[in-house]
């Protein structure tokens, strides 16, 4: 008991020998300043985002009309629009989803459910981690060397863009999908095995449905990043195009008339199917000295932000429902 009162004396400052000074006021003041700084930092991002939205909507409002979606690029800014670029982005989005979902989810299933713990699976794992950290512009160089030069002898067509963006977003899709699969409780798998299901039946009918919201979140967030990418598309050598991209995988006219020699004529695979995407077209016009093109770029940014941010909101909504 006597010890306790000693301590009380010391901390209460009643003992004249003690030099202990709690400095409560200044410490609490610093605490408040610090808390204020933390709140400022947290809200700064939001403030910047709002400011950015305000600026682009203000700048681009005069061009935010239906013409934007119906006109092709032109030297005259008032007769220019994003039709070819928006169609390019939409088709790219569709085909990238078509490729990245099976590839990404299969890889995630393999690594989470099948891979044994050995050097080989560790190699794949390390490799995917490192791929996720490689700058997007390096994927552009990969696409340039492999697809544009290798497959299409120097022509930057829509397929090369789709393949490049698919490879770019595959690692993050795999990483986040794996987390979703890992979060499925082991008991669900054991119950499925218990009634005699095979491994694949267990995965197909129990693990995948349970992990689906998480996997969809991964796919949507990563694809929205891929659609907003400009750097790899610039490196591939895309340019301004004045026609709609061809996007059918087969020439159905030739298929139905039995003219099989022209089955791939004027399709996605054609070597004259040059393309542009929305962020690339914005980049072209940002760099133009005419102020009317800056307005056009702002209007394009509004469209791009609506596309990308709404994909992100869908993903957040899915993730919150999954939890």
């Amino acid at each position, binding site marked *: 008991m006597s010890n306790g009162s000693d301590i009380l004396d010391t901390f209460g400052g009643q003992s004249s020998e003690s030099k202990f000074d709690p400095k409560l006021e200044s410490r*609490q003041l*610093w*605490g408040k300043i*610090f*808390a204020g*700084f*933390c709140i*400022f*930092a*947290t809200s*700064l*991002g*939001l403030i*910047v*985002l709002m400011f*950015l939205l305000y600026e682009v909507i203000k*700048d681009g409002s005069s061009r935010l009309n239906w013409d934007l979606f119906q006109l092709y690029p032109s030297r005259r800014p008032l007769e220019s629009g994003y039709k070819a670029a928006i169609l390019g982005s939409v088709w790219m989005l569709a085909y990238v989803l078509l490729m990245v979902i*099976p*590839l990404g989810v*299969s*890889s995630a*299933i393999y*690594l989470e459910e*099948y891979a044994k713990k050995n050097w080989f699976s560790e190699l*794949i794992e390390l*490799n*995917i981690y*490192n*791929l996720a*950290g*490689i*700058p*997007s*512009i*390096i*994927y*552009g*160089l*990969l696409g*340039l060397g492999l697809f544009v*030069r290798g497959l299409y002898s120097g022509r930057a067509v829509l397929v090369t863009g789709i393949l490049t963006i698919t490879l770019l977003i*595959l690692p993050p899709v*795999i990483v986040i999908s794996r987390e979703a699969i890992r979060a499925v409780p082991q008991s669900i798998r054991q119950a499925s095995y218990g009634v005699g299901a*095979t491994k*694949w039946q267990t995965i197909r009918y129990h693990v995948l449905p349970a992990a689906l919201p998480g996997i969809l979140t991964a796919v949507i967030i990563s694809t929205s*990043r891929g659609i*907003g*990418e*400009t750097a790899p598309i*610039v*490196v591939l*050598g895309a340019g301004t195009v004045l026609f709609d991209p061809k996007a059918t995988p087969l020439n159905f006219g030739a298929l139905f008339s039995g003219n099989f020699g022209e089955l791939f004529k004027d399709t996605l695979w054609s070597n004259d199917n040059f393309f542009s995407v929305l*962020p690339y077209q914005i*980049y072209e016009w*940002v760099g133009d000295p005419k102020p009317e093109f800056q307005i056009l770029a702002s209007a394009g940014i509004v469209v*791009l*932000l609506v596309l*990308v941010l709404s994909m*992100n909101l869908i993903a957040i909504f899915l993730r*919150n429902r999954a939890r």
Partner: protein
Amino acid sequence: MSNSVNNPESDSLDLYQRADRNIKESAIAYALLFCAFVSVLTTLAIVYVLASETVSFFGKASIGEFLFGKTLANGNYSCSWAPQFADKSFCVWPTVNGTMMVALIAMLVATPLGLATAIYLSEYASPRLGKFLRPVIELLAGVPTVVYGYFALTVITPILKKFIPGLDGFNALSAGLIMGVMIIPTIASISTDAMRAVPVSLREAAYGLGSTKKEVATNVVLPAALSGICAAIILGISRAVGETMIVAIAAGQRPVLTLDPRQTVGTMTAYIAQVAKGDSRVGSVEYEALFAVGMTLFLITLLLNIISKQISKRFQETYE
């Protein structure tokens, strides 16, 4: 398939189906393995494409000049990067200098703000508010970088020009500031996870000794989560080094050896974007220089990622 399993009369049939089932099962396993292998092939292809062009680049330009510059005929030392001009020079440092300067400015913005955000999310915000705020902050990483570039060039640079005399139209400063905002979510997100992993008992002990909330956050939680924070910062640097569109739009395309953030600079990524946009002939030295710079960038980011991974793995504090 399940019917026959339940049927005792079709024993032999059942066995066949089981064999089928096994074949199907292992076929699926191999198909999945193939998909996982695509990522390994991607890495091999990246290394092959970069290495083959880099090798032929060094057949035309000397590796000594690439790394150390050259001595001109008049005896002066020169280190400049201009493979696309008639009078070619191949010293890579001006582009590396541009990259490092913009990345440094970006990290000076992103590190304090990202950490403060992480502290707010893990120490101050209620779980409900945190659950709402986190995705909102991550939205910042979802904004396409061409948009940030446009914002830096047309909004931030004119504002800065009012305060800073001698600011170029394209400059490292505004590109770096906006890049910092872009990197905040990377640092905040990983650091928040690291801070939340610090056990509550450590905080309670500190409160028990009479610490204020700020002291708990900075003197207990921050040091305890240091490995995760370091990994986050290094990952942020790697993002900054590899970022292309912000610098290509707002920082300019003139690789110079300067430490003045008001000047126009040229980063490695901006150089790649600039030259790839103009049509350079395959086999020409400027085409191959593209890949040599790409290889340098690839090695720098790979190194940073490996260090980040090692730090978070090796120095991970485990609390029981």
